[in-house]
């Protein structure tokens, strides 16, 4: 059989097993499997809606859409518009509460 010199070797199943999942990945899996990630997400969503953060983000989106014209906007554009402001404007108590819950979970799992 002729092998092309430039073609990389087909990865074997054995090779995949050598890569160990990182701690992050392990915890992520545990978060999802236990349902905690879903609960935390719902909690965060609720908190952010209550304090008006979601409305602020929607207003930013609408302003951007009005400026650019609604047929020229992609989801990606909107994500880039609200991510910096969004991350910076989460109220401190909300952030602290969620971080605390995550830490509690981490401690219970490790």
């Amino acid at each position, binding site marked *: 059989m002729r092998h092309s010199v430039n073609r990389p070797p087909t990865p074997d199943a054995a090779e995949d097993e050598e890569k160990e999942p990182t701690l992050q990945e392990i*915890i992520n899996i545990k978060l999802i499997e236990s349902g905690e990630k879903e609960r935390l997400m719902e909690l965060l969503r609720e908190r952010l809606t209550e304090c008006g953060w979601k409305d602020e*983000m929607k207003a930013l989106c609408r302003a951007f859409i009005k400026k650019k014209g609604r047929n020229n906007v992609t989801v990606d554009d909107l994500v880039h518009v609200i*991510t910096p402001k969004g991350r910076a404007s989460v109220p401190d108590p909300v952030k602290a509460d969620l971080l605390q819950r995550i830490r509690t979970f981490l401690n219970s799992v490790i």
Partner: protein
Amino acid sequence: MSASREDNTSPDAQLSSHFFGDLLDSIIVDIASECHRIAKLGLDRNLEDEEEELRRSTQARVRAADPSNSGETNSKYVVDIFGQTHPAVANEIFDCMNCGRSIMAGRFAPHLEKCMGKGRKARLKAARSSTTAQNRYSRGSPASTYSPYSNSTSTNRLSNGSTGVAGEDLSNGTSEEP
């Protein structure tokens, strides 16, 4: 990565922050996706209305600023959504069902005013010919009572016609005949 259980150690804090950021990013994508959907489907009424208003006001400003446009000529050249132009006064001709004359559609309303008795001449005519109180315009026949109003009525049928009626109602209170 250390498996320390202390809250102050940075890897642990980093980890929590990482997951918090993860949750936040998902929520942000959801919001962006929702706004995108609303915009694309045109569900945001405010957005459309504002756009439409903006467009119309700029159009109106252009029209107003243009000195070559006068009100009358403008209406002749306005085009409707089917691309048709219409003359300022409707020009179809038909027969009046009251008096039987041939009337132009655009002049029908003022014609009816005279013909059916809202105008001064018709009122006087009706008052003289019918002695009963059935005709509501026959209340007061002397023209002198109405002279301040009826003068203006005869010159301009359309806008002062209503003033004439109002004046008539006022003076009727005093000069009503049984």
